[in-house]
């Protein structure tokens, strides 16, 4: 045990060579916005394992690698054959499994870790308001998922812009396809991040949080399967409300119809219930945010 002596020597009055005395700080102190912003940036980096150990980087970057690779392959196919296997929006949808896994790993990394190490009292005793912590974490996770989907979409756009025939006009059309798709990716990000973060905030055990998130997203899918084969058209058209991923697809096919809807088998039919899907998605996100705030009101006081 050398540290008590090290401490003792540090605590001795001036004259020790490394002791240059304490300096008061009278420089700028930033306000609540800066503090919440710093937490947001820190959390966004954490979601991708930046500033963390190599082990924490493996999974997020594996998923980033896969999505990037898929986008690159799509670009190559289009450049070589002129076919468009997946539109930008369909790409976001095709990646939904990866998004689920990404959220299942990133959300516990953002909140369960802090719960487990008991670090929260240190955050809540700092100059920010109580809702700032969960909201900064949520914003960071939404941004991370959006970057995960939007980055490859941008890659596909750049690839298309260089290979498409028809000059600037075609590039412009391409951009008009991209922008709503980025919005669609944002919709995925908001819904998945909100649900995932609420689940992760309930436990300090990362493994439970990982499993819980995957379970909630995957267990709801069979429900959709069952409902969509029931002999009632209305039930069929409302069936996709039951799972977060089909819910998002439903909202997407209502908002950006021709971009999202695929022909044939895999397509989902929601009839005239588009506004219902949007309302349910909105209510789901709002509920998740309220749950998060309530959860951290309790945590801050304990």
């Amino acid at each position, binding site marked *: 045990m050398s*540290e008590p002596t090290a401490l*003792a020597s540090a605590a001795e009055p001036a004259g020790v060579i490394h002791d240059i005395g304490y300096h*008061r700080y009278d420089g700028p*102190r930033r*306000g609540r916005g800066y*503090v919440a912003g710093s937490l947001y940036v820190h959390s966004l980096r954490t979601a991708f394992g930046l500033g963390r150990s190599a082990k924490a980087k493996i999974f997020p970057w594996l998923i980033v690698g896969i999505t990037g690779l898929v986008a690159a392959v799509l670009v190559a196919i289009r450049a070589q054959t002129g076919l468009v296997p997946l539109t930008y929006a369909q790409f976001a949808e095709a990646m939904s499994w990866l998004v689920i896994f990404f959220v299942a790993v990133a959300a516990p990394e953002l909140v369960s870790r*802090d719960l487990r*190490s008991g670090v929260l009292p240190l955050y*809540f*005793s700092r100059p920010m308001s109580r809702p700032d912590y969960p909201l900064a974490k949520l914003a960071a996770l939404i941004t991370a998922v959006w970057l995960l989907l939007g980055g490859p979409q941008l890659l596909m756009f750049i690839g298309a812009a260089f290979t498409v025939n028809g000059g600037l006009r075609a590039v412009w059309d391409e951009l008009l396809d991209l922008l709503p798709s980025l919005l669609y990716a944002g919709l995925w990000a908001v819904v998945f991040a909100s649900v995932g973060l609420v689940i992760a905030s309930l436990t300090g055990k990362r493994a439970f949080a990982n499993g819980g998130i995957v379970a909630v997203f995957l267990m709801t899918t069979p429900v959709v399967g069952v409902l969509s084969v029931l002999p009632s058209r209305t039930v069929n058209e409302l069936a996709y409300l039951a799972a977060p991923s089909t819910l998002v697809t439903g909202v997407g096919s209502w908002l950006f119809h021709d971009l999202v809807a695929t022909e044939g088998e895999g397509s989902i039919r929601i009839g005239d219930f588009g506004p219902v899907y949007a309302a349910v998605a909105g209510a789901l996100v709002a509920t998740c945010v309220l749950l998060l705030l309530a959860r951290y009101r309790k945590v801050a006081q304990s």
Partner: protein
Amino acid sequence: MALIATQSLSKTYGGRVTALAELTVAVEPGIIGLVGANGAGKSTFIKILLGLLEPTAGAVRVLDLDPVTDPVAVRARVGYMPEHDCLPPDLSAAEFVTHLGRMSGLPRTVARERASEALRHVGLYEERYRQIGGYSTGMKQRVKLAQALVHDPDLLLLDEPTNGLDPAGRDAMLTLVQRIGTEFGISVLVCSHLLGEVERICDTLVAIDAGRLLRSARVATMTSATDVLAVEVTEGVEALAARLANLGLQARRDGRQLLVPLSGPDPDAAYDLILAAVADLDLPLHRLEQRRHAVAELFADREVAHV
């Protein structure tokens, strides 16, 4: 300006459990010891000061700010060291304290500079680049202190800072706290359930029990009035007591010891009188020492006073 002032501060949980009851206290800047048994309401008091809990009734001011209406402003000027483990094992102390410096509103580069400075002041040098998970309890306590210090607060709230430390570590921690209070010019509120531990570094002591104020006073006023000499002789305690009574010293029997209050115009004279008496009676003197446990005895009676 009072550092901390409360007026009939009360906190009940769920309307049934009383954590603080009608606590009225005002303390001046300096090192303040907040003592009380576990569950006396110390942690509740700290959380109210930080604006994390709202009092059920009463008013509170910290650094002349109201933590109920303006908690963010209070927290910007206060550093808090919690009692329990609160460090992530997989970050280095340097990274962690830097991050929390920014969380206190320090610009990025300033946060990094002040983090290494704070860690140096608590005695962590090259170790600060290692992951906290590998630290000893003593080192972890010092990281906790450094994160409370990183933004140069005007008031430090330390909840049981010596928790889990060995005697040498306790002494070092208390010396460090004392140095922060005197040399650094930062007021410190130290919570402890061990009065003997904090009384030696504090200017002011506030004792609470079951959420009620027992006593709050400057240490100097308490000890000067009440220091006692403990005389321990292996035999002839009665004879010595009688002799001292004749000399005008009101000795009190406490087991095998005699406690002689050090009062009067010339306290030092008591030493000479006692030594002379012991020599006259030819008693085997075992110990003669000035006791500072007097403060503890003061807190035993439930007298309420204000600084």
